[in-house]
């Protein structure tokens, strides 16, 4: 079960609305390396993890990513606050205005709608944890591109916080990978479909 906490993980503020930047940062909402993709990827992979620590980590990071998705949503909400049709047209984001007005929609920076294709789950804990490490690096890189595209110090603060989380998650997934690898060696476990079985059984 999940419970909603009526607060953001980290404050989200903007100096002034900026539709052009909203059009860019929406990719962290509904893009391939965005926060929705991250959250669903991790929460969905929990079921094929062999150790309790790995299950806990995927639960916790998957939950934190939901909070990051909410921060990106709040950022887009504030960046487009009070924007008119003209503002959207000037930013080259009139398609958003025509189809969604001030409503949010899951797309990347090019307007490509979110897809489950962004989620990987092979059911092999080594494969999936390595996938997650790559995903964290891709998100980190995207945040670096986004930070380079804005001068607003408030927006930079939000993006830097999210950038730092990608670095920490990468570190933790790396540790989980080591632990799972050790576990497989130590207790002579071999990969056997969706179950881990002791050798010789």
């Amino acid at each position, binding site marked *: 079960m999940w*419970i*909603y*906490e*009526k*607060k*953001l*993980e*980290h*404050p*989200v503020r903007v100096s002034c609305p900026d539709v052009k930047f909203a059009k860019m940062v929406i990719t962290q909402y509904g893009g391939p390396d965005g926060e929705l993709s991250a959250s669903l990827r991790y929460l969905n992979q929990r079921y094929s993890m062999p150790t309790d*620590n790995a299950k*806990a*980590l995927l639960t*916790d*990071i998957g939950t*934190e990513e939901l909070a990051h998705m*909410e921060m990106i*949503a*709040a950022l887009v*909400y*504030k960046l487009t606050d009070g924007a008119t049709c003209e503002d959207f047209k000037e930013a080259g984001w009139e398609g958003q205005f025509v189809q969604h007005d001030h409503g949010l929609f899951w797309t990347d920076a090019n307007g490509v709608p979110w897809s489950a294709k962004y989620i990987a789950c092979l059911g092999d804990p080594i494969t999936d944890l390595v996938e997650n490490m790559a995903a964290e690096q891709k998100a980190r890189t995207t945040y670096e591109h986004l930070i380079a595209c804005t001068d607003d110090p408030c927006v930079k603060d939000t993006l830097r916080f999210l950038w730092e989380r990608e670095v*920490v*998650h990468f570190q*933790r997934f790396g*540790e*989980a990978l080591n*632990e799972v690898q050790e576990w497989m060696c130590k207790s002579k476990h071999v990969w056997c479909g969706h179950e881990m079985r002791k050798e010789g059984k």
Partner: protein
Amino acid sequence: MNCEKQFMMLKRLQEMEFVAIELNLYLDTHPCDTDALNDYNCAVEAIRKLKKEYESEYGPLMNFGMGGYSKEPWQWAMGPWPWEL
């Protein structure tokens, strides 16, 4: 709407919850680190206190019975919502 006081109270809670999130993820991969475990438990204590203070002013932080008590009228449904603050 002037929400500066609410924003600042929430910020203290966000800071302490950040400590807990970091320690939580760290403990997921270092479950036997007793220093980290003690720090985590200290953060739990601090969060409890900050949450109680915040909720007595602005109502429950969590729904479905997991947050604090509500005053009248039903405080959960009152703004500002997190993205508006």
